[in-house]
């Protein structure tokens, strides 16, 4: 199962890529004072038609013949068990936005963890997609744009070890600076 929340971020972003998105925006906001953690993943992909939208939280529903279709139901469960919820705003041709809220201090809230690895994986595995990642923690913000870092890297091109190192460092240092990982 998805034992930490960054897995859900990865899963939502993979959904966005599968929907043909060229830009995926990931916002994480840790507001300890307000006991609130929010995760928002929005994309410019093809969006979801209304009849499908109604069923995205049904664990037995999927649009793909071979895919599992469990991603959103698992996220909704993780949010509900920590006093929060999930909202999906989408329309055909207008992209999709998924917002998940969690009570920060709730005993059943899964830890966030490993956001640096998650964003690195998305950026390096999909160089043709622009990932815009903003992480706020108690008023301090770290911003990362994969297009800026990976400019000129194509999907079919070999990956340079120096690039891996630089992306890893940028993300780890940035998150450390705002007091998270």
């Amino acid at each position, binding site marked *: *199962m*998805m034992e930490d929340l960054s*897995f859900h971020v*990865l*899963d939502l972003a*993979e959904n966005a890529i*599968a929907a043909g998105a060229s830009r995926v925006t990931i916002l994480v906001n840790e507001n300890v004072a307000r006991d609130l953690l929010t995760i928002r993943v929005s994309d410019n992909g093809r969006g979801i038609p209304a009849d499908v939208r109604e069923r995205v939280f049904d664990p037995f529903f999927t649009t*793909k013949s*071979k*895919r*599992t*279709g*469990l*991603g959103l139901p*698992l996220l909704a469960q993780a949010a509900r068990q920590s006093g929060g919820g999930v909202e999906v705003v989408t329309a055909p041709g207008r992209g999709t936005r998924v917002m998940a809220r969690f009570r920060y201090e709730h005993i059943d809230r899964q830890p966030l963890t*490993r956001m640096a*690895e*998650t964003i*690195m*994986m998305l950026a*390096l*595995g*999909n160089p043709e997609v622009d990932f815009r990642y903003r992480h706020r923690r108690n008023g301090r913000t770290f911003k990362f744009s994969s297009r800026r870092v990976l400019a000129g890297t*194509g*999907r*079919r*091109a*070999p*990956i*340079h*070890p120096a690039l*891996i*190192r630089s992306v*890893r460092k940028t993300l780890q240092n940035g998150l450390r600076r705002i007091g998270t990982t």
Partner: protein
Amino acid sequence: MKKLTIQELAKIREKTKAMTILREGAGRAKVTVHMGTCGIAAGARGIMDALLAEIETHNIQDVIVTTSGCAGLCNREPMVTVEIKDQPPVKYILLTPEKMRTIFREHVLGGRVVANFALAVGSEMMH
């Protein structure tokens, strides 16, 4: 013009597939990590992390890394597909970071298929 048989078409397809990597980039190999919900839940992120760390450690500059969705074998995840030029793609199943490191050193760098971890080579089932 003589009609092509299914067998001939299949042969052409395999041949083109092997050549695609060569043509599209300067890579010696392409490694695809399966990142569907099933793959992610089974630990694909740790596999990708191990793969990237190997590329860094060995300072390898000609390996293409990419991700794909679910391949329909969710109970065999985490999975990766390794493609070496002029050879048919190999799917590896039920991976751990340690197995990924072995595959990287043996297959990607050494050119030897790690048969123990493979689902299939070409179209023949190995186990």
